[in-house]
């Protein structure tokens, strides 16, 4: 065998180095292949991931196989953004609702126009109209709503019985409920944002939709009034005062350090009298209640009480929890759209996933008769009622533009810690909203009561 000369060694080393560098700099393409539809999703645990893989990835039998890659809640958006900027990314691009990043992705050319496929797949008939309207940017359908949700009032019936309380329906009842529970040493409402700072916006949304009312919110969203209107300032101030009284999480400081397991545990163990959260918690509660948790605790839900004067008793805060679009870099947009259609509209699969995993479904038309006898009646009731809902509210992660939403999340903490007045907070919302509105970044919102 020939010995390796120094020249050859240097040459080979240089070539290897260059190859490595160029390889590293080259576009990684489609995570290895252009003939696989890739899907990144952020589900809660391994059980949900496994179910999703079996039924929503391997369960699809189109022209391309689907490869599912689970991602953490806290990182999925960053991972997708970085991958897109590098010319790669998953075939199906998901975002936490139409407010979050959709218009930026569209303007950067990463999302395919889904409009031409709407008629072929009959999306106008399948989806709730408000959800499709909110999925448009500049009149172009760029994503499909992959899950929808609303805010509800959770309670543990045993705790309510012990306290002699009932779910509140009005502001007076709500305040009496919290004061009574607090006075007896209970946490009135289990809450915490240690795991997810975005939880702040749930309560801002409640203040706006249930404190100021959906008519006022719609008016400001459409630019007719401003967010500095006294009705909003009052609603935010009132919500902040509830926090400062220790009604949420047991105190402002505890709210910042309670993580989700603590929150659910407080409700299940009877330490908390209630919980204001979204229907996305349906699958999460199973681990803390009943057989799976080794106890006989149960939970129930009710509509969020009205928190303001002249606000309807029932308001359904509409939210698209996840939006999904198609990456323009994928070689076959049609094939990717076909999978997207399966993912969001295959009713059999969707109903089964609700029954077996409590997954939040896309806003497709569902009736109680679509469910089998094994379905959880609490969940059947929700989606049956929600499908027929008329009185609607507007969640920040569905109907507000990106930077306004981020501000609402971050600075609400300053309001509840008394570092920022409600008025200044609302002025901050207004200045950001006005700028983003002029840039056309506000998703379309249906009129209050305009769902029929």
């Amino acid at each position, binding site marked *: 065998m020939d010995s390796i000369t120094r020249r050859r060694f240097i040459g080979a080393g240089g070539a290897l180095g260059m190859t490595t560098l160029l390889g590293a700099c080259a576009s990684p393409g489609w995570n290895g292949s252009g003939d696989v539809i890739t899907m990144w999703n952020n589900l809660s645990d391994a059980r949900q991931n496994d179910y999703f893989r079996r039924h929503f990835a391997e369960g699809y039998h189109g022209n391309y196989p689907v490869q599912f890659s689970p991602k953490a809640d806290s990182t999925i958006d960053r991972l997708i*953004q970085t991958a897109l900027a590098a010319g790669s990314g998953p075939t199906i691009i998901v975002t936490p609702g139409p407010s979050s990043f959709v218009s930026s992705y569209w303007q950067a050319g990463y999302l395919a126009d889904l409009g031409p496929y709407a008629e072929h797949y009959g999306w106008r008939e399948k989806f709730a109209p408000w959800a499709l309207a909110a999925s448009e940017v500049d009149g172009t359908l760029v994503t499909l709503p992959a899950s929808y949700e609303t805010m509800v009032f959770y309670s543990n019936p045993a705790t309510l019985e012990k306290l002699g309380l009932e779910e509140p329906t009005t502001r007076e009842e709500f305040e009496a409920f919290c004061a009574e529970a607090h006075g007896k040493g209970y946490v009135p409402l289990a809450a915490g944002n240690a795991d997810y700072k975005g939880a702040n916006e749930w309560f801002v949304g409640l203040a706006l939709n249930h404190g100021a009312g959906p008519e006022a919110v719609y008016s400001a969203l459409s630019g007719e009034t401003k967010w500095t209107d006294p009705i909003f300032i009052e609603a935010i101030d009132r919500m902040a005062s509830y926090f400062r009284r220790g009604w949420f999480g047991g105190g402002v400081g505890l709210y910042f350090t309670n993580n989700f397991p603590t929150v659910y545990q407080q409700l299940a163990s009877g330490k908390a009298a209630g919980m204001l959260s979204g229907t996305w918690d349906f699958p999460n509660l199973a681990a803390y209640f009943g057989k799976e948790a080794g106890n006989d605790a149960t939970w129930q839900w009710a509509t969020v009480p009205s928190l303001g004067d002249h606000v309807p008793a029932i308001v359904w805060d509409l939210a698209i929890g996840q939006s999904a679009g198609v990456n323009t870099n994928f070689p076959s947009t049609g094939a990717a759209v076909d999978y997207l259609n399966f993912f969001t509209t295959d009713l059999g699969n969707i109903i089964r996933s609700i029954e077996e995993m409590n997954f939040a479904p896309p806003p497709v038309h569902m009736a109680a008769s679509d469910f089998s006898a094994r379905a959880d009646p609490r969940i059947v009731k929700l989606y049956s009622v929600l499908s027929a809902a008329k009185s609607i509210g507007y969640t920040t992660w569905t109907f507000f533009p990106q930077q306004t939403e981020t501000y609402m999340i971050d600075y609400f*903490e300053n309001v509840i810690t008394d570092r920022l007045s409600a008025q200044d907070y609302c002025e901050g919302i207004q200045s950001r909203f006005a700028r983003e509105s002029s840039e056309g970044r506000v998703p379309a919102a249906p009129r209050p009561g305009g769902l029929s």
Partner: protein
Amino acid sequence: MTVSRTTLPRRPPRRSSPPPPDSPPSNRVRALRRLRDRKVSGWLFLLPLVLFNLFVILIPSAYSVWYSFTDWTGISDRANFVGLENYRNLLDDPEFVQGLIHNVLWTLFFLVVPMTMGLFGAYALSRVSRFRLLFRTLYFIPYIVASVVNASIWRSILDPQQGFGDLLRINPLGDPEIALWSVEFVNNWAWWGFLVVVFLAAMQGVSPSLYEAATMDGASATRQFFSVTLPAIRPTFAFLGLMTIIWSFLAFDYVYILTQGGPAGSTDLLSTVAYRNAFSNLQGGYASATGIVMALISGAAVTGYLIVRRAREWET
């Protein structure tokens, strides 16, 4: 089986015909000579590293500088030149100013607390002969454990309802008045052991004869520390001080894991502000400007250190 080197067939010496006495050396020979030249071959060996550096550090850094003058979103390939607008906006941005103040507080804390603990820890360790390796290992372990693990453990320890916080009736991570100090405490817990090990290594390089002379002169252990140890390890001390300033302006992980900059922005650093602007607000150009300011501050610290080092003629 061993074979004597002398039994191995020797390779015949390479024969090369020397160039004719009066003719100039050929191109090939000149190239070979250049290759054998130490400088050229040195550069050749450095080439892969230089290329790597170019692609991984220099080019992205140049892009960052460019983007800081644009309205780049961070995801798009479009970026419009906006001049100094991003830098002007930084000065009016309360989040940036707050982050900068927190960074300065963070730096001061890390220049004082862990440096002092590290120095005294190392000095104490240098005076013991038994179990030194064990102590050194114990001090070093938190440094090599992933920050996410350290932070998660401390989050449980400091929990106000079932941990240390409950015992002391405080909420270290939920109270905006003390949250920054609490995060610094956790980060310091993982950091100071590293300083102990580095200072100890420097102290072991101090000539024992200096201590013997000081002992003969009747100097106490404290006096020996201030008059012998400290001057002898001054270059290491200064270098770690410099690195502390640089690392303090790059701090991110513990804050992000423990508090995400909250509550109410009370633990926000420049890095978390930049991160939020880049990934939540999609203001890549603005976040780049924040990063450039952070780099300039670090650059100023390095320059200051180099000036002092040259003036004092330190060797390291």
